[in-house]
């Protein structure tokens, strides 16, 4: 193929996250061997121990919590031709970004107890905890070329990205709500079944896998750029959710995004 990079060197890195996205990629078993023929995997802690100095495509999973993680990310960025945020944590902070709703000292107290909250300022052994401050998505630290969203990532989107980069063309991830995929799959809307859902304000690309499996959308792929949140809040209220329940629903996966949007609106 003409424009193809010659066997690009691919690397995987993990920041704060559950490594489930790397597992989702290892789960491409049926075509993984064919894929490995087309690329050279030079670093992948979840699967191998080798490392390399330069990467054509770096996949970085997880969110950034400490300055040393940010430095590590900057180092990876400097050594990578393309950098891909792998999964919800890397793309928008995901569940961890809930921590941003409270001051770090308050979080320390909640998690480690009041004693820790005091000691962290005076006892050197506790200082690493103090360094754990705001949860950031990768793009808040370095330039990110592509985002693979989801908790975990969708294997078809991962393959799409890799194939497009191999072919020398641009991967496309349309900013369309989950509803699009529900309708394409012929799913009945969960609102018609008396359930509520975040599909209308959430980026699709997941094949509406949760709704197809009998659940609802909780928004793990992040907020749509033009999400009509005011209308969505009103809809959830009409369906019997109170303001706190609505905030809880948004906060689960969308804390990193909804705070710098309308957030908790008028009540």
């Amino acid at each position: 193929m003409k424009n193809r990079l010659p066997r690009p060197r691919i690397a995987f890195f993990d920041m704060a996250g559950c490594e489930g996205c790397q597992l989702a990629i290892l789960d491409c078993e049926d075509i993984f061997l064919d894929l490995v023929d087309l690329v050279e995997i030079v670093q992948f802690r979840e699967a191998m121990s080798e490392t390399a100095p330069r990467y054509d495509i770096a996949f970085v999973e997880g969110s950034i919590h400490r300055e040393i993680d940010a430095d590590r990310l900057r180092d990876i960025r400097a050594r990578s031709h393309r950098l891909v945020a792998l999964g919800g944590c890397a793309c928008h902070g995901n569940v961890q970004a809930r921590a941003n709703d409270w001051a770090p000292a308050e979080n320390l107290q909640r998690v480690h107890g009041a004693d820790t909250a005091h000691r962290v300022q005076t006892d050197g052994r506790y200082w690493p905890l103090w360094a754990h401050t705001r949860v950031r998505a990768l793009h808040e630290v370095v330039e990110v070329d592509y985002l693979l969203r989801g908790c975990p990532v969708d294997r078809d989107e991962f393959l799409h990205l890799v194939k497009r980069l191999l072919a020398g063309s641009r991967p496309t991830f349309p900013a369309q709500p989950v509803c699009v995929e529900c309708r394409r799959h012929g799913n009945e809307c969960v609102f018609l079944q008396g359930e509520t859902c975040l599909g209308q304000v959430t980026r699709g690309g997941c094949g509406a896998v949760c709704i197809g499996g009998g659940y609802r959308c909780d928004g793990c792929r992040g907020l749509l750029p033009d999400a009509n949140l005011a209308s969505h809040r009103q809809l959830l209220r009409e369906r019997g959710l109170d303001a706190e329940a609505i905030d809880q629903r948004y906060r689960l996966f969308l804390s990193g995004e909804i705070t710098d949007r309308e957030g908790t609106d008028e009540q």
Partner: protein
Amino acid sequence: MGSYLVERSVFIDWISRLARHEKVYFPLPVSKSSFRFSRVRSRSRLALEDFDDPRQAKPFRASACIPPPVRLLAPDNELLFTFRRDSAGDCHPTPVLDHNRRILAGVRPCDLKAIALMDRFQGDGIADPYYLARRGNTLLIGHDCLQPCDEYCFCEAAGSLSWRQGADIFLTPQPQARLLVEPLTDQGAALLADAGFPACSDVQACRARAAARRPTPFARQFKAPLARVMHAVAESWQSPVWERHAGRCFSCGTCNLVCPTCSCFDVRDDFNVEDPDSGRRTRHRDACMLEDFAEVAGGYNFRKSPAARQRHRVMRKFVYLPQRFGGTGFCVGCGRCGRQCTVAIDIFTIATDLLAGAGEAA
């Protein structure tokens, strides 16, 4: 062509037998409130409505069939062609046309009309060979409606209730659990030739009996004839109604994707990982209510606001396509978009508001 008057259960048995050697699709329940045109298997339970018990729930409702039956003729993620690149770098496509014979049974008049309209649309100008290949090998068994599907339906107002054109066989419920079975094409007659159904002696009387059973008016009505509604929509470019109905819109595309006369699509090329010199092009249903639908090269979006997109969608049903195809409305009144919209944006209400606005202006 002779018609038949047959016990409902006998007819259902016949469909089940037919499904053993033909691909037969029928609206089968997927939940308490929804249906999908699915392959009839030996254990499928087919239900047809009862003439004598109008309170009985309608066994399959057009508005609750997501997606509409026309999607079987233009499915999502449809493979258009495979391609192979030779050593000189040239690509050679191999089209993949689906000539499989299939029978869609239980198609309501509104969906029959939608398929008839799509036949004209897909055959016009640069014809769509994929749709036409499927359609050319598809038989339709229509089913009359004696009661509206639900509160979203407005098929009579949209001119669909009495639609039969395109059906190969048409079914009408009759008293005492019987069914009037009318072949409308040679293919339909051939399919029924060996069924051994008893002949119907008075087709007109049977039809009249069913028509008399319908409530009048049938479902929701516009306050003026359809032609005036279409005229009012055509004159409404500057109307404030568009904004009124866009405020709560999520631009989620549901109204387009469940519509039996929406057919916009996008295509996608992918090469095969196991053989990178080969690949495939697929097409996917697109929707003009989506934010990025009208975004063109350079990032300019010529229908940026939800109101502008809503106007385009409604204009296409009531103005643009009717103008191109000689008058008849492309909204068939099935009620799918209104039923599926989570914030109750209903094309019937929009058209009604535009009509009212036109009255005030006049």
